[in-house]
């Protein structure tokens, strides 16, 4: 009796969840966004990563570090590819200094970062970060895109179909989709009595992070009076555009070898396909010696 009811429940569950449902652990619906780096041939858009770094620098770096990245990564191939000299001068002006030492007097000292130093956040340690942020810890962003995902809550037949589609199309951008949705899902910019902000994309719906991008507070891509560099179009600075660019930048930060990886991937694929076909033809020749 009970099993019959459970079976009926299972059937109706399958029938009801006709659409694919995507949700962060909390339950909100997360849209898939189109990224330049998604799919089998996707690559980072250099201009977008450069804009994204500017958003990180002006909006995120006040609280969040990027400490698995070094300044040198900013001018290396496959990333934003800023000018080397510009990055080195940026490093010398970076507000978060590197603790070094001890010097000849046995004292520790602070110095500006070199190209080989990590992009540190402003807080000396977790306690300091929590103390300055109402008890919440702004996470380091170097791996944030890889460390977040969107759960598939669809019924099992759809789940299986979606998995197959994702494997064939090379989709693993759920982390970027989530962060993009998070940055776009603030409802109002006033905290509640506990200092929490309403954000539908965040599990539980309330987040400690102050809205980093608001309509009145976007990151401008061009200084006042500056015009776009020749041959480049600079998109308008909207919340959505800022969010997209900084998410792309953070995606690169968590997976800096993506460009090379996918390029080599195709070479490997072509090599394997040709070799498999040749081996198969060779095998046919060899087996043709036998009577079938």
């Amino acid at each position, binding site marked *: 009796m009970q*099993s019959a009811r459970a079976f009926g429940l299972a059937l109706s569950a399958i029938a009801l969840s006709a659409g694919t449902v995507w949700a962060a*652990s909390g339950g909100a619906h997360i849209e898939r966004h189109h990224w330049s780096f998604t799919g089998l041939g996707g690559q980072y858009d250099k201009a977008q990563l450069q804009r994204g770094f500017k958003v990180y620098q002006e909006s995120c770096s006040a609280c969040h570090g990027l400490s698995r990245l070094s300044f040198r990564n900013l001018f290396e191939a496959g990333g934003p590819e800023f000018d080397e000299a510009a990055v080195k001068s940026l490093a010398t002006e970076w507000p978060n200094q590197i603790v070094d030492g001890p010097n000849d007097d046995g004292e520790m000292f602070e110095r500006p970062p070199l190209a080989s130093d990590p992009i540190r956040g402003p807080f000396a340690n977790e306690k300091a970060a929590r103390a300055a942020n109402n008890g919440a810890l702004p996470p380091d962003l170097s791996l944030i895109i*890889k*460390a977040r995902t969107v759960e598939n809550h669809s019924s099992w037949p759809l789940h299986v179909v979606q998995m197959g589609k994702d*494997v064939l199309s090379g989709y*693993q951008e759920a982390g970027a989709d989530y962060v993009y949705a998070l940055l776009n899902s603030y409802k109002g910019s006033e905290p509640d009595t506990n200092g929490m902000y309403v954000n539908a994309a965040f599990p539980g719906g309330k987040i400690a992070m102050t809205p980093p991008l608001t309509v009145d507070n976007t990151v401008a891509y061009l200084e006042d009076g500056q015009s776009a560099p020749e041959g480049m179009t600079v998109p308008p600075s909207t919340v959505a555009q800022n969010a997209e660019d900084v998410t792309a930048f953070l995606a690169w930060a968590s997976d800096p*070898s993506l460009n090379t990886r996918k390029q080599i991937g195709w070479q490997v694929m072509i090599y394997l396909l040709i070799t*498999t076909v040749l081996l198969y033809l060779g*095998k046919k020749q060899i087996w043709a010696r036998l009577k079938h």
Partner: protein
Amino acid sequence: MAQHESTYKPSNNFGKWMDERLPVARLVHDSFVDFPTPRNLNYLWTFGGILTFCLVAQLVTGIVLAMHYQPSADEAFNSVERIRRDVNFGWMIRNFHAVGASMFFIAVYVHIFRGLYYGSYKAPREILWILGVFIFLAMMATAFMGYALPWGQMSFWGVTVITNLFSSLDSIIPGLGTSIVQWLWGGYAVTGATLNRFFSLHYLLPFVIIGLVILHVWALHVVGQNNPTGVEPKTKADTVPMGPYAIAKDAVAMFAFLIPFAWFVFFLPDYLGHADNFTPANPLVTPPHIVPEWYFLPFYAILRAIPSKLGGVMAMFAAIAVLAFVPWLDRSRVRSTKYRPVYKWFFLLFVITCLALGYLGSKPADGIYVFWARIFTFYYFAHFILVMPFVGLLETPKKLPNSISESVLGKSGGGGGDTVPSGATASPEKR
């Protein structure tokens, strides 16, 4: 090794000199060139070679990774990130190793199901099969400890949950479970000490697997390969020499297998892992869902399907241990399921059961998921304990072909009048 007559002829004086002192070349020739293989093997029989490749690939990439990895609670996560970012082609080696573990399990599952379908465990291949079960167990232990090494959130909590299972043994002998758990942990909690011993064992166990694989291949070369008909080779016409025939086929399959392998390595390197493992281990924060790697999911579903903790642990281990008894549980007169009109439907149900348990293992352990996990857990064991003996006894198998060559060439060609490749002999063991 194999008992067929050696056809090795040294081609030069050095070969002759060597052959009289240490006949390695003769061993290789007899075991991997002139070894008779049934001529009707299909591509499912290429997975032994593929698995050998997987083992070697894991060893090579693993040894290189160990040159850069630091097994300490403070540095393990950072060192894996340095491998991904700063070691030349470190990302590729790390992806190859991480994806390689999954591919190893895909191949071993195909290999196991092939053995189950064609009755490759039946006499005289019982020891061959049991060695395989031990290899599977060693692989699972190695993979479990390997997943701990990046020391991310899922590493840490996976280790915590699975090692804690042993504490349920306290309900048999008080203190036994607790002692085992403390011994596994190297302390009173999962710490860097646990990580260090897991790293040590993760490096050791693959060499144990190599030893088991050598025995597995040895046993195979004594009894010879099974084949899709399940009929033993009788005449020279039933077999072809491994070189070049089986080797040519193995090579095609291995490169074909490398295509999905490389697909994941280069296009979806983190698809088979968990996002939580990109957050460093934190004993104070439990992830919302603690889920093992996909290849453990069916066993995880069985663990959680049983209401008692001890019962769940015993069922999980029994699910693997029962495989070792399959040679005696199956009472069928024929080997191959191809000739078993009733059992083949039960076999299909068993495959569905394993896939369903895998899916259920990835879901939270509540409501409808537990209900279905119990149903499928029941069938998982019923298949071995009820279906295998009773369907085997009651079923009337279809008529078997008289010989392998008859099944390939039809009735007329069975007489052995066709061109027999030189060097091919009949069954390796003359019974």
